């Protein structure tokens, strides 16, 4: 019998690090658990459409040093933290001391705080399903802890610019943990960018823990280059009456995988998950989302749009799990997909698992092309075919772009979308 491929042992050697002892201990424990971890293949259900894009070489197992410089494409209007190859760069970061809000790199934590954090890390994620992103916990060399006290309100968004820059193959493991105490409010923008051309892996985990009535918005913009295989996970746990909104905008690459897992654990909690994915050339992008309705009276609203051009491949898997006690749950999931060429592929799978008997659940998924009648209507008014294509493609996602509550992100996303249109739709 053929042996299933396992993660190369080279990936389980974390770089020497100045992390506090409790976090080093956690890393070691997680690493041990991953020995002989099977790599996903097309027989692995949640990697079925994406395993063929995963190309990890032993050279990529090396931790990239914190060097290089890429420069964000965002004109950052708020507070800024820069991570370079997974390590925070204080001299490039810029944020003031804020009342009731602690922002600290993992390396600067006291042993006591680090021990407290170590007990919480991974608490938002199902480690059985995030698989490869779990490697982050065995390898992170730094990270950012954001802790909001009760009633603390951050007056501007915090931007974390995750840069990866390398003149050799390797990996980066950025890590973020956000604790929002009761009635606190916070917006986090995470931008993933890259420079260089050597094959690298970015392996990232961001976690949000929302106490009662906390309100958190997470914006995630991925514009990394063609050399980056990105495997990321975001985990969220929500207590009573908390609000979580997520806006993910992703442009394709050789491998792009994002798992987003939300647990609604307190009554009255609500989450809204928006996602836009655009792929072209031979690019790939895979979004796997899970919403667990654990408590009663929670609402979830999920809207994802994929646009695939050329020979690219987009995947959406949206799972909603309504637990037995989650009566009066209200869950709405919608995924629409636009194929811009006959060579493009989109796979979508909504999954509902319902164990409560008094719930409202709706889901819908469609895959289509640009509407010929609409195109004819536009060109019959003198609009060029190219511009008509752009108008209709933009119309497909515009609503979601406009909902992103930070203008700088909308502008960058729009700029990148225009580049996509320029290369996808020819001038007449």
């Amino acid at each position, binding site marked *: 019998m053929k042996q299933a491929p396992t993660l190369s042992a080279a990936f389980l050697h974390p770089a020497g690090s100045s992390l506090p002892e409790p976090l080093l201990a956690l890393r070691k424990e997680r690493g041990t658990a991953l020995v002989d971890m099977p790599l996903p293949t097309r027989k692995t259900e949640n990697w079925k459409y994406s395993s063929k894009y995963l190309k990890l070489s032993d050279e990529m197992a090396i931790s990239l040093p914190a060097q290089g410089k890429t420069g964000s494409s965002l004109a950052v209007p708020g507070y800024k933290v820069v991570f370079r190859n997974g390590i925070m760069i204080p001299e490039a970061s810029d944020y003031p001391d804020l009342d009731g809000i602690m922002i600290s790199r993992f390396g600067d934590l006291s042993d006591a705080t680090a021990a407290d954090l170590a007990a919480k890390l991974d608490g938002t994620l199902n480690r059985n399903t995030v698989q490869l992103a779990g490697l982050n916990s065995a390898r992170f060399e730094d990270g950012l802890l954001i802790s909001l006290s009760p009633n603390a309100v951050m007056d501007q968004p915090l931007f974390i610019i995750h840069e990866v820059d390398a003149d050799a193959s390797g990996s980066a493991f950025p890590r973020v943990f956000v604790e929002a105490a009761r009635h606190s409010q916070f917006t986090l923008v995470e931008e993933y960018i890259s420079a260089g051309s050597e094959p690298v892996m970015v392996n990232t985990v961001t976690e949000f823990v929302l106490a009662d009535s906390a309100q958190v918005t997470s914006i995630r913009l991925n514009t990394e280059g063609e050399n980056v295989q990105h495997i990321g996970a975001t985990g969220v746990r929500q207590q009573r009456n908390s609000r979580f909104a997520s806006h993910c905008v992703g442009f394709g690459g050789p491998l792009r995988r994002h798992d987003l897992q939300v647990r609604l654990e307190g009554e009255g909690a609500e989450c809204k998950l928006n996602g836009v994915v655009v792929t072209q050339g031979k690019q790939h992008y895979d979004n796997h989302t899970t919403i667990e309705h654990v408590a009663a009276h929670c609402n979830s609203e999920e809207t994802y749009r994929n646009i695939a051009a050329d020979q690219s491949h987009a995947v959406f898997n949206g799972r909603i799990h309504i637990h037995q006690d989650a009566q009066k749950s209200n869950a709405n999931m919608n995924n629409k997909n636009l194929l811009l060429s006959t060579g493009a592929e989109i796979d979508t799978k909504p999954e509902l698992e319902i164990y409560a008997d008094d719930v409202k659940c709706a889901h819908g998924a469609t895959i289509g092309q640009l509407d010929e*009648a609409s195109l*004819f*209507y*536009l060109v019959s*008014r*003198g609009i060029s075919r190219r511009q008509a294509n752009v108008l209709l493609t933009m119309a497909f996602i515009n609503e979601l772009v406009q909902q992103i509550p930070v203008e700088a992100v909308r502008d960058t996303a729009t700029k990148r979308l225009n580049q996509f249109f320029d290369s996808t739709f020819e001038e*007449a």
Partner: protein
Amino acid sequence: MLSIKDLHASIEGKEILKGINLEIRAGEVHAIMGPNGSGKSTLSQVLAGNEAFAVTSGEVTLNGENLLELETEERAREGIFLAFQYPVEIPGVSNLQFLRTSVNAMRTHRGEKEMNAAEFMKLAKEVSRQVDLDPAFLKRGVNEGFSGGEKKRNELMQALLLQPKLAILDETDSGLDIDALKVVADGVNALRAEDRAIMMVTHYQRLLNHIVPDYVHVLAGGRIIKSGGRELALELEEKGYGWLGIKEDAAEAAN
């Protein structure tokens, strides 16, 4: 202005237009009437350049230029405008954005400066009032959630904004109550000009009470079987199409 000679067109191998001959000069208003399925809408769509229809033979020129060699958008820029019978809804594209893109495409073609958002907004508001359409509709998606009458008025508004050489109005009167019909008729009459021709496709002659045509043509079975002045429309109203030896359902069968 528009010259159609022995035009044949088909869709999915089925011939719909079987030799249309028509001359329209600048300043004239022509009404094309006929029973359902006679080819009226096909003629409109073919002139506008809908590629779903194949022109199998014949000739169409606009001011001497071969129209059939032009792409849809080029025809529009040369001055062809089709007011659709069933305008599509395009959610996500605002009416204002659509209209400005269209007007500026025409202006660029004519070598004129594009209109900025403020200039265009002013113009669009004026024209929307002219067709009795609340300017709030400008902010909605193109035709999104518009009633039948609102869609027709939105079409007419586009004609007024784009100032075409030849306006083809495909059943612009259908589905309108009498008040809306008057608004639309006023709009069409406002379009009448020395240097512009109007081709109105209609099933009923009631629109012609408000817009007096110079010529009336009866289209049946893919051919123009009778032409005359406005009195022909009244005669049709009185006698029906049977008088010309065609039945509505027979016309369908002929296709």
